[in-house]
């Protein structure tokens, strides 16, 4: 990638971070935080976006960011105060800014109407007079902002020869400078010439500007003749190290325009007397001749005419200026003693006019040497060879760490996965070893057994630590939600405050990636269905603004995500009515409130006419439930009429390890994911019926579900197991379908490391993956979904509830 593109990529990456920071700052402000550092941080974020956008000529983005920034600047300077209303406008502006960034990134366009509306809202925060002052009045978007701003896209030409590098010119300058030495400025050629009178003030040197460099730049514009005027230099005992005594007259020949010349003096213009005129014009000699005798004065005594006194060789001049005076060269008798060498304004001798050039050079060299010895740290004048690149990288990394509070490293995900795999093997190997040692008859108290116990603890610890590497805070998902909430709320015309808790709760990266959709659905649902309209809330005596709480917490080795609203709660009669109408429950079914609430997760419950207003997505809660189950998770709802509802979903912390129920079927050891299991029971012969002479169903309480003989379904044996001699495990598939798995025995619950079967063998229907047990045997992990679906296909409608 060319460097420009790569920086552009960096810019957009940085924008993401800035937008995130900005949003959390704005949310804090919305919550009433009017700390100046918070406001500053938001301002800086917008400012940085604008700055980068300027570099890439992203005009639309610049324009919007500028207005946004201006409003924030008003807040910084206390001209605009934080109110709830202001915070809300700013939050929406941050959304629009994010849209602009996205558009700039993809080369797409933004919603012009929305932008203009937003601009108007931002302008509305500032009173009109002030807006006019800031150039934000009128439509505020076009000329005003552009003029005020003057941003031009940068043209980064990398072909530009680096030959302009600093050192080159010095030599050229030297060459040019030797010729005219000794002669006062004179119009000797026909070429147009500029006559520049340059009289620095002490302030100029205090800002680290140097005459020598300015003159060198000037020399780049054409041929120069330089004459230094030392007339103002006082006798040695009156010399002040802080003062500026010298002035210069330069004749410049060449094609340079006045603005070229002025540009050279851009940085020093306000700290010097500067006259630029065409050579031969009257001002040249006489216009500016303030003769002040007091050497301590700001305008050092000098006169251009006095230039004739001592023409100096430019080379000597340069050498001296660069070297800066040493303590000896600028003796302190008159002025206060200076502990450090001063910038280059003091003249070396009381009477330089009589000094020859060679002497001056020698003096300058001496001064330079002394200066280096006296003050300059070696690192400054003498950059070390260059193992620096590494040091720099380290330093930058350390710095990044410091700002983020904890040092981090970036590691390729593949490497982490390899490590996790290896640790998985280690866990298995360790379990096998323990079992073998135990089987070999060694006493529990033997050294070997005790050592193994320690090994086991250590292995667990390693496993936990390795899993923690992949763990990340849910923040990355949570932080996208405020915007979603604002948008959905706007869309349905409700007022919503989102409260988030536990953003730092950690969970495996793969789980995080898949949390986004379910959370999005639950939030949409909460705002759209859960919360009442402002009018309804007012009538019900509630705060007009509804609250939705999104929280994450760890509970029992799982992560729990809760979405709670303070809305109307589930309308149970309506839900029940819908369920009956859709044939999901019998008309006379006796259901607890809890059971009714959970009907909304049934497939087929949420159909278009029910969810049409869920932001037009038409996605029901059954879809949410399915995607959560796919992650080995569970979801449930609790609700209280007119108080609100709470959705809780719990997920495993990782997808690399599975909580399983180890069962045996046809002498094989199998694992059923615990998240699918509802209950287990010993079937009674009278509860099992054959449908169509072959497919068994089992009656569990008042429901019939398919009874799947796992040994036969997986082809381990041909003869069915007599139901009464086995155990039935009632499972629920992701799709919500239920079935009972008939196995011979349940061995127990265990955490197993998931091994892909496809990666090592091939896909087998009904088997999701494999694992290795403590005794070294491979156990297949059942694909409950596939088993249930197959049985249901074979025996349609079998689950249908029978009239009691």
């Amino acid at each position, binding site marked *: 990638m060319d*460097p*420009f593109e*790569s*920086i552009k990529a*960096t810019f957009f*990456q*940085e924008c993401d971070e800035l937008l995130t920071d900005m949003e959390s700052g704005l949310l804090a402000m919305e919550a009433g935080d009017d700390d100046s550092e918070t406001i*500053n941080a938001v*301002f*800086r974020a917008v*400012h*940085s976006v604008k*700055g*980068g956008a*300027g*570099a890439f*000529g992203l005009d639309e983005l610049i324009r919007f960011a500028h207005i946004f920034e201006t409003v924030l600047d008003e807040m910084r300077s206390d001209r605009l105060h934080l109110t709830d209303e202001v915070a809300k406008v700013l939050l929406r502006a941050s959304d629009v800014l994010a849209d602009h960034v996205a558009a700039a990134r993809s080369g797409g366009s933004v919603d012009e109407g929305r932008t203009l509306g937003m601009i108007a809202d931002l302008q509305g925060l500032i009173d009109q007079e002030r807006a006019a002052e800031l150039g934000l009045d009128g439509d505020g978007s076009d000329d005003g902002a552009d003029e*005020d*701003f*003057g*941003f031009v*896209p*940068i043209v*980064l*030409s*990398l072909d*530009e020869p*680096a030959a*302009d*590098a*600093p050192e080159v*010119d*010095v030599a050229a300058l030297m060459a040019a400078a030797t010729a005219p030495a000794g002669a006062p400025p004179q119009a000797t050629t026909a070429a147009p010439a500029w006559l520049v009178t340059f009289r620095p003030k002490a302030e100029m040197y*205090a*800002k*680290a*500007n*140097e005459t*020598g*460099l*300015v003159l060198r*730049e000037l020399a780049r514009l054409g041929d120069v003749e330089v004459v230094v005027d030392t007339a103002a230099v006082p006798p040695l005992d009156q010399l002040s190290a802080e003062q500026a005594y010298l002035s210069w007259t330069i004749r410049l020949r060449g094609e340079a325009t006045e603005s070229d010349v002025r540009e*050279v003096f*851009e*940085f020093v213009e*306000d700290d010097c007397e500067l006259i630029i005129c065409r050579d031969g014009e009257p001002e040249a000699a006489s216009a500016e001749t303030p003769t002040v005798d007091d050497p301590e004065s700001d305008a050092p005594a000098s006169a251009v005419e006095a230039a004739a006194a001592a023409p100096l060789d430019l080379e000597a001049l340069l050498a001296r200026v660069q070297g*800066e005076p040493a303590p000896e060269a600028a003796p302190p008798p008159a002025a206060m003693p200076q502990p*450090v060498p001063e*910038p280059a304004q003091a003249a070396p001798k009381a009477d330089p006019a009589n000094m020859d050039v060679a002497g001056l050079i020698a003096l300058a060299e001496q001064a330079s040497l002394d200066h280096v010895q006296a*003050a*300059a*740290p070696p*690192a*400054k004048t*003498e*950059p070390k060879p*260059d193992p*620096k690149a590494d040091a*720099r990288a380290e*330093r930058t990394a350390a710095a990044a760490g410091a700002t983020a509070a904890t040092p981090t490293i970036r590691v390729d995900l593949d490497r982490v996965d390899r490590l996790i795999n290896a640790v998985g093997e280690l866990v298995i190997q360790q379990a096998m070893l323990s079992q073998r040692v135990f089987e070999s008859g060694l006493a529990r108290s033997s050294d070997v057994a005790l050592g193994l116990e320690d090994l086991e603890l250590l292995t667990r610890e390693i496993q936990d630590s390795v899993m923690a590497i992949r763990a990340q805070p849910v923040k990355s998902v949570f932080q996208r939600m405020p915007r979603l909430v604002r948008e959905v709320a706007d869309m349905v015309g409700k007022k919503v405050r989102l409260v988030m808790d536990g953003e730092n709760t950690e969970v495996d990266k793969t789980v995080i990636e898949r949390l986004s959709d379910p959370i999005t659905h639950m939030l949409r649902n909460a705002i759209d269905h859960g919360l009442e309209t402002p009018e309804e809330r007012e009538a019900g005596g509630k705060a007009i603004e509804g609250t939705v709480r999104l929280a994450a917490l760890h509970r029992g080795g799982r992560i729990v995500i809760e979405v709670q609203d303070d809305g109307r709660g589930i309308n149970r009669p309506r839900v029940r009515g819908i369920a009956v109408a859709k044939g999901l429950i019998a008309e006379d079914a006796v259901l607890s409130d809890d059971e009714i609430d959970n009907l909304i997760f049934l497939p087929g419950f949420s159909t278009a006419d029910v969810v049409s207003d869920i932001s037009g997505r038409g996605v029901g809660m059954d879809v949410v439930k399915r995607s959560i189950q796919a992650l080995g998770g569970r979801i449930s709802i609790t609700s209280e009429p007119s108080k609100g509802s709470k959705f809780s979903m719990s997920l495993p912390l990782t997808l690399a390890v599975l909580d399983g129920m180890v069962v045996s079927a046809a002498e094989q050891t199998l694992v059923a994911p615990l998240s699918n299991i509802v209950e287990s029971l010993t079937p009674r012969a009278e509860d099992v019926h054959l449908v169509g002479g072959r497919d068994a169903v089992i009656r569990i309480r008042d429901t019939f579900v398919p009874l799947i003989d796992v040994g036969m379904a997986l082809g381990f044996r041909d003869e069915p197991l007599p139901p009464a001699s086995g155990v039935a495990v009632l499972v629920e598939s992701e799709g919500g379908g239920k079935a009972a798995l008939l196995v011979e025995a349940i061995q127990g619950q265990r955490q197993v490391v998931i091994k892909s079967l496809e990666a090592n063998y091939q896909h087998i229907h009904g088997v999701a993956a494999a694992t290795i047990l403590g005794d070294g045997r491979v156990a297949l992990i059942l694909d409950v979904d596939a088993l249930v679906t197959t049985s249901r296909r074979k025996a349609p409608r079998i689950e249908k509830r029978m009239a009691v």
Partner: protein
Amino acid sequence: MNKTVLTIDDSRTMREMLNMALVQAGYRVIQAVDGVEGLEVLRAEGADVVITDINMPRMDGFGVIEGVRADPAHRATPILVLTTESDATKKERARAAGATGWIVKPFNPTKLVDAIRRVAA
């Protein structure tokens, strides 16, 4: 002998921009992400020129200028501030604090190198 330029800016984009242009022009570049770190790095590694942004967390560009000027070893180190066209007041404040010159954002590499040459040998 390459000159060392210390760039202080909280924006990674801007730091990379400066880095690219300066390295291209033959300078050695060291970076810092805010004023506090900038002064630390300057003390530790030294630099021939300091380029600093104004708006930064922890310590802004004015703080950098004051800190550099207060350090006897760097009283005479040139400081260029990054500013925008509309920031005339900030430019003045920076000058008053002792800034040597300024670079108007967005800059192009030639202008950037010109500005450095005007303040550093």
